[in-house]
């Protein structure tokens, strides 16, 4: 475990903080302890912590108040609660203020290590992901997306149109864009992901400068489109669903373009090519260089 990832264990019972510290340190975590919410705040003001494991019922300042303070002042740190009352209400309260997970009391070392391990991964993943949009997507793109979300926000059933627009704006739907849409439309990321993965129109991978869509409809099948697909794969050295190394072309198949009179049919960006054959593929690709 790298030293720069710091964990703080907060509990008014010293036996708990000590045993947690012992168990976690044995696995190489960098762990310190605090005896109350107030003590934790003081410690956090002195030094940065990445993950806080806290009890809920404590004198002076209880766990929920501590978590709320953290959300306002240390939003990047993750929180796991340790509780002797894992009733639905307490968990729900804690979830509402944004915890990652919980450890029920009494617990075994295995449970503590398991929950902590996952929380550490989550915090690392989260900070990694949250920083990305600033690097990858220009602010204008994000504000355009926010504008779309704002426009559809109050309309019921708007998830698909918003995602279609989002894909138009960004080009594809990476996790951080899906999350932004989810947050904007008040859906869970899982709901948004379930929609994106269901419909073939959506793609979670970036496309090339030129997107090639080749038809797999019956008429194209009968006219042996397979041979042209194989030729495309060989020419571009990619499989269906992938992007060429130079990011110039991406290759997709579609179920029917409804232009069966021209079978086999291929569409590059918005241009339709009819009666394609392995022989024609090279010339067509060549016209894009």
């Amino acid at each position: 475990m790298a030293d720069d990832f710091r964990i703080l264990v907060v509990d008014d019972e010293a036996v708990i903080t000590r045993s947690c510290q012992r168990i976690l340190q044995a696995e190489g975590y960098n762990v310190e302890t605090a005896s109350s919410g107030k003590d934790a705040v003081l410690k956090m003001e002195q030094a940065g912590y990445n993950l806080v494991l806290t009890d809920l019922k404590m004198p002076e300042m209880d766990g929920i108040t501590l978590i709320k303070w953290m959300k306002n002042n240390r939003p990047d740190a993750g929180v796991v609660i340790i509780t002797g009352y894992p009733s639905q209400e307490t968990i729900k309260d804690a979830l509402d203020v944004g915890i990652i997970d919980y450890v029920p009391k009494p617990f075994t070392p295995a449970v503590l290590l398991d929950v902590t391990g996952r929380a550490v991964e989550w915090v690392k993943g989260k900070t990694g992901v949250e920083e990305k949009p600033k690097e990858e997507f220009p602010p204008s793109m994000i504000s355009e997306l926010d504008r779309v979300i704002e426009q559809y926000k109050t309309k019921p059933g708007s998830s698909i149109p918003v995602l279609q627009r989002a894909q138009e704006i960004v080009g594809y739907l990476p996790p951080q864009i899906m999350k932004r849409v989810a947050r904007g439309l008040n859906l869970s990321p899982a709901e948004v992901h379930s929609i994106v993965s269901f419909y073939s129109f959506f793609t979670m991978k970036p496309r090339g400068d030129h997107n090639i869509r080749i038809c797999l409809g019956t008429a194209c099948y009968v006219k042996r489109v397979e041979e042209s697909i194989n030729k495309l794969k060989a020419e571009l050295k990619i499989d269906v669903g992938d992007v060429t190394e130079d990011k110039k072309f991406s290759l997709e198949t579609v179920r029917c373009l409804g232009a069966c009179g021209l079978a086999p049919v291929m569409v590059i960006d918005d241009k339709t090519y009819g009666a394609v054959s392995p022989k024609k593929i090279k010339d067509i690709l060549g016209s894009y260089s």
Partner: protein
Amino acid sequence: MEKYRANLLLCAGTGCVASGTQEVKEALKEELKKRDLEDEIKLVLTGCNGFCAEGPVMLVYPEEIFYQKLTVEDIPKLVEEHFLKGRPYEKLMFREPEKRAAIPLMNDIPFFKYQVLRVLRNKGMIDPDSLDEYIARDGYMAAAKALTGMTSEEIIKTIKDSGLRGRGGAGFPTGLKWEFASKSQADQKYMLCNGDEGDPGAFMDRSVMEADPHSVIEGMVIGAKAIGATKGVIYVRAEYPLAVQRLQKAIEDCREAGLLGENILDSGFSFDVEIYLGAGAFVCGEETALMRSIEGKRGMPRPRPPFPAHKGLWDKPSVLNNVETLAQIAPTILNGSEWYRTLGTEKSPGTKVFALTGDIRNVGLVEVPMGTPLKRIIYDIGGGIKKKKKKFKSVQMGGPSGGCIPESLLDIPVTYEDIVKTGAIMGSGGMVVMDEDTCMVSTSKFFLEFTADESCGKCTPCRVGTRVMLDMLTDITEGKGKEGDIETLEDLSRDIIATSLCGLGQTAPNPVLSTIRYFREEYESHIRDHWCKTGICSHLCSFHISEELCKGCQACLKACPQQAIIGEKKKAHRIIQELCIQCRSCYDTCKFGSIKIGPPGKKDLPAPVSKAEDK
């Protein structure tokens, strides 16, 4: 309004655009300007004409002369000959393959001669972006009649009496559907249009939306009045950008003209339509799935009842009609149910649009009266098999839910009842013709790939069963089939049909069952002899050159990517089996039919082909 000496109706459907309509249009415009004919001759871009294989096509009014395969280079000559000298330009006219004479008039061309246009009444005749042109063809007369002079009951009675059946596939009586919804009590009802044309090989809905968007909207207005809906949604595939654009324009024009919105035509009736873009899921053609999708969820079907007529979109009574169904509403209201019944059969009245594609000469959209024999459609209108020496093998109807009909049944009339008896279904009207070079096992595998991929996953028999069937079919095409596989496939098919919730699973095994029914010996040959006689399954065949038939032209030798063919000019060639990769290039190249397909692994040369065939 200005009058023109001639109107040039240039097709701007997707097919023709891909073949070069835009370039031809620019060339025509320029040429007309150059010759100072701009004020006399009007150029109109129309929706899909239907004769897609010959595109770009153009119809010249008033004479109704049909030009095809236009190129930019031909335009100066065409304008000079036809519009300056008054001599229609023969070079660009349609010719029947065996006959030399050009056919100038559109309605003399066999492809058009046997068609009766109701759904496609305006195809290639009007500018789809012009509300005025639609109105000039009696557009919105029926809506006016329905809104101002008919009660909801009268509209429903007319449609019920006409016997119109839903053109989406199942053929449920439209009037009945409307009646159920009209009797449901609710504060809000929805009139929906299904433009999510998912069947591969069918493109009639796309053409109607592109060529005549107002006919769909008019049908929806009348339907809305019948069931008491004030809101409508057209669900269109995102893969159809031109259709979306045209519908959008049509809706805006209607709102401006007061044909959509509050108090339409001062009748007190209000109705408005919006477009919803589908995101590509075949199962969304199913009505409950489509409604879920509009609600912004995964498009998965749910059990019925409750039927959408009682609880549909947002749990409100809803009617979902197919594009082709809606396009027939206006003329039926205008002319009455008796008129509608003048074509077609007792149980399947009216006309049906088919998308004729595959190994056929005249590819395109055709509309014929119900009850027309399949033979007429395939041979008279379609012109028969494209390749001269090849024989007809089968016609696939109904897409992945349908089946393959063999030559022996081509006399049957196309009606809902008769097609079902063959093991296929009417479906949305895709008609894919296959010649003798088609392997039926591979074809059913193709459809199973489709359904296995598109199964939404809700019902285990459909999700897992189609996958198991696909694996078996793949094994068979690779020579790993076992004795008893055919029976297992049949058993699995029956189970999947019986235990799936929606139409996708209930019909997914149809392509397999129908090919087993009519082409069982092909399955047996694949399994027992490991021999694909069409040479499509490359593991299960070998190619040989018949010494008697080979003319020694060296065409195959040049076509072979492996240099596996040897032989001198004018002497019979041979294939070196060790080098052959069964790519079929020689087979497709040979003009004399001298390449024969034997069972795999015949390494000795020359192969005794005639004996292999006797086997």
